[in-house]
């Protein structure tokens, strides 16, 4: 294994502690500073700060974790404002109204997002901007209920029940409380199953699907939660401002500002948006006060320029700078580099594994593939491919480049819909099913790897494997435990805290297998896990696959490394130009003249 140069990154508890102290200090200051100063304007700034921090944190759940950039988040804020104010008009407390607004906002969010989340591309961003305009126009149009362009005043019922006060302190307490709740929710999501699934989806949608994640559904959860929280803040803000109108409730610059605070603090981090708001809101508010009407547009101009500069030079925001600083301190810690842990019970490097010992007799069929057909335009990629996989069997799928092997894999894992033919898998309960989507396949116990490795780049090795483990486990602790066990088994234990990106190709291939193993599949589809790794690694991988098979998992392996194919496979299928040209025991297949011709050309067939 050649990846000795790698430095595992540990995060010492001292750093985590320092982070916690910083967080508590910032939060305490947000509540105590205005109380200590006691000035009306300072109160206003801190309330605004809490509101923006809360909105940005909520935005970040969909914009950061799910990676779906909304530039129209004021839709949800505005819905919350309007629903809250209308219900107050009917005598319903905003404490109840905020939940009504949240429910409506979540519904609207799902309706707008669903078409976009099925697609790749900038559609979601466009749709959020477009519907921001739609809601503004609707609020203007239905003036009987919304007050139209003149807006609505809230009735001045003073008291906690109505969220309206003579002093500023109670408003600050409510704003601060909402911020805390939203931060807690954002933190909880990030550290639990949903957060892992969202970030996996953001990083590599196809790998996330292979890990059994219904990527559209988790993104919808994210947008619904984000919208609901934004709406609740909107309800409170309307009570605080005592007045709403379409132009400010459904405002594009306001939406951009929400996203911008998250960007400046650090998109996708739990506390980045908070930091962005804490840093920027005071500057903005003071600038607005100081410049005022004198230079109309100046403060917006500066905003735009700051946005451009941050995107160009500080794309990871302030949190990115902070963590880079900590990484440097960590890198100086000595004695962290080391060789990879040896695999348990691994053979000596020159010990060529003989034919598998004590092979358990292959059991009943577990996968049936009948007459798979697929065309890409005029190209007939797979032509009537049929085969069966038995329980506890290793099936080798070989063939020259372009034979259609990966296409077959894509069709038996739900990533491509076959033009014709059928795939059925025997479920754990013994019944036969025909899964359709990658999530169906994962649910029934079919796991796959990708030929081109697909690590979740922004995650550590442990987190990568946990994404797989979350397929079986709901609690973070269980998933972490399972991931550690799998990492141990795959020889990745030393690298648990390393960024997935820092692994060598051999390490990444093992990570790919580890992630799918953590899903505890019954059928394992391995796409060239041995390509491009060195001899010693090949031997270890062979051993590993045999040990996986011995636990009762059935394997289909696409492989070019013939040594591995011969040593591993119980049965081999040879694919050429989309057809099965030979199948049988490994020894028989390699002597088949058709196979030799497919690989080497006609002139070599006579020598066989």
């Amino acid at each position, binding site marked *: 294994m050649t990846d000795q140069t790698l430095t595992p990154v540990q995060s010492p508890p001292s750093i985590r502690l320092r982070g916690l102290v910083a967080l508590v200090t910032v939060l305490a200051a947000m509540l105590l500073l205005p109380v200590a100063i006691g000035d009306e304007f300072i109160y206003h700034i801190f309330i605004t700060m809490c509101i923006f921090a809360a909105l940005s944190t909520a935005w970040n759940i969909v914009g950061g974790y799910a990676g779906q*950039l909304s*530039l129209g988040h004021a839709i949800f804020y505005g819905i919350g404002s309007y629903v809250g104010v209308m219900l107050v008009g009917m005598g319903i407390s905003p404490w109840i109204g905020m939940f009504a607004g949240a429910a409506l906002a979540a519904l609207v969010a799902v309706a*707008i997002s669903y*078409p*976009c989340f*099925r*697609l*790749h*591309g*900038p*559609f979601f*961003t*466009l*749709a959020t*901007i*477009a*519907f921001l*305009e*739609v809601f503004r*126009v*609707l609020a*203007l*149009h239905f003036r009987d209920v919304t007050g139209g362009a003149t807006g609505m005043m809230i009735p001045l019922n003073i008291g906690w029940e109505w969220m309206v006060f003579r002093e500023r302190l109670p408003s600050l307490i409510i704003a601060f409380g909402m911020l805390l709740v939203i931060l807690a929710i954002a933190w909880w999501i990030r550290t639990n199953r949903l957060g892992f699934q969202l970030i996996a989806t*953001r990083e590599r*949608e*196809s790998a996330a699907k292979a890990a059994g994640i219904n990527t559209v559904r988790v993104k919808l959860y994210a947008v619904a939660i984000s919208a609901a929280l934004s709406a609740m803040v909107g309800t409170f803000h309307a009570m605080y401002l005592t007045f709403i109108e379409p132009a400010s409730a459904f405002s*594009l*610059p306001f939406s*951009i500002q929400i*996203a*911008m605070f998250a*960007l400046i603090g650090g*998109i996708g981090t739990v506390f980045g948006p908070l930091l962005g708001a804490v840093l920027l809101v005071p500057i903005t508010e003071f600038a607005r006060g100081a410049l005022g009407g004198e*230079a*109309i*547009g*100046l*403060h*917006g*101009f500066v*905003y*735009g*320029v*700051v*946005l*451009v*500069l*941050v*995107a*160009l030079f500080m*794309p990871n925001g302030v949190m990115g700078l902070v963590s880079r600083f900590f990484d440097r301190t960590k890198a100086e810690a000595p004695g962290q580099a080391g060789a990879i842990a040896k695999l348990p019970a691994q053979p000596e490097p020159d010990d060529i594994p003989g034919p598998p010992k004590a092979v358990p007799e292959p059991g009943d069929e577990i996968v049936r593939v009948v007459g798979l057909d697929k065309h890409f335009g005029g190209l007939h990629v797979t032509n009537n491919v049929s085969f069966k996989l038995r329980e506890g069997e290793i099936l080798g799928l070989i063939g020259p480049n372009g034979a259609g092997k*990966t296409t077959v894999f*894509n069709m038996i894992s739900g*990533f*491509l819909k076959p033009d014709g033919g059928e795939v059925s898998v025997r479920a754990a309960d013994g019944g036969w099913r025909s899964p359709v989507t990658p999530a169906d396949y994962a649910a029934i116990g079919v796991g796959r790897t*990708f*030929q*081109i490795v*697909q690590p979740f*780049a922004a995650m550590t090795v442990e987190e990568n494997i946990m994404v797989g483990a979350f397929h079986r486990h709901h609690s973070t602790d269980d998933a972490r435990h399972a991931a550690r066990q799998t990492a141990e088994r795959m020889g990745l234990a030393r690298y648990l805290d390393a960024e997935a990106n820092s692994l060598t190709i051999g390490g990444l291939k093992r990570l790919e297998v580890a992630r799918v193993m953590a899903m505890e599949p019954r059928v394992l589809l391995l796409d060239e896990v041995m390509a491009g790794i060195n001899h010693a690694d090949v031997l270890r991988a062979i051993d590993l696959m045999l040990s996986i098979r011995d636990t009762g998992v059935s394997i289909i392996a696409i492989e070019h490394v013939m040594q591995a194919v011969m040593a591993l496979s119980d049965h081999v299928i040879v694919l050429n130009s989309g057809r099965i040209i030979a199948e049988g025991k490994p020894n028989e297949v390699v002597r088949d003249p058709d196979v030799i011709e497919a690989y080497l050309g006609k002139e070599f067939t006579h020598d066989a």
Partner: protein
Amino acid sequence: MEVFLQVLVNGLMLGGLFAIIGIGLTLIFGIVKVINFAHGEFLMVGMYAAFLLTTALDVHPYTTAIAVIPLLFVFGMLTQRFLIQPLMNARDDHIQIFVTVGLSTALINLALLVFGAEFATTPPSGLRTALEIGPVRVLVGQLVVFGAATLLVVGLTLYLNNTQFGRAIRAVAQNRAAARLMGINVNWVYIVTFGLGAACVGLAASLIAPLYPTSQTIGTYFVLIAFVVVVLGGMGSITGAFLGAMVIGLIDSFSAYYIGSDLREVAVFTVFLLILILRPQGLFGGRQTLSHVS
């Protein structure tokens, strides 16, 4: 019937307007693969330039195109070179979106600083005169915009298909890495393409300035519709953008007449969402690969 014809013609004229704005946007998206959220503000810059030149030099607004087109061309090239190019290899496209959004915000507010909140009205020079063609009336300026949009589509298509540089542009759009291996200077192609996209808006600006009063929000107004046009036409397709613009123009015009002029945008954006559900590759786009499987 006459009303119907009039609404139909209005829709087509509006379509011409959306087309001439959408073409540059779809060109940039198709080749550089960047959504230029500042596209509308490019239009705004061009319209202010046309306004200033027309009033300062006392010339016909169309004459300003001689200066506005090169101005926007250079502006687009600079944007690509200094704002987009450094981010071409960014891990996700969010950061490019933020840059163009930031540029858009900065330009809108710069206009507010310089010109204030007042409308800048370019002298119409007879372009707002109505022509009676049979039962319908159209403005001279609208007809010119429609004609210019048509010519622009034909011209760009010929350029991309028949010149060496046009082929280079298309090659880069197909596969950046392969084009680079063929000796194409990919960064330069991007810079020129962005310039071309912006130049299209420059032309649009000179033609639209005498028809609409210029304000700092004029770009936001047009560009939202232009996004829908580009998606409807199949992102990156120039002919698609033209046809998409006609469809959106008609929807806009008919919904304004039959539903209510303040709800036109609701109709247009609802259609946008329906397109995403039913035909995400656009009404006129080719097959789009929706799965990213290795």
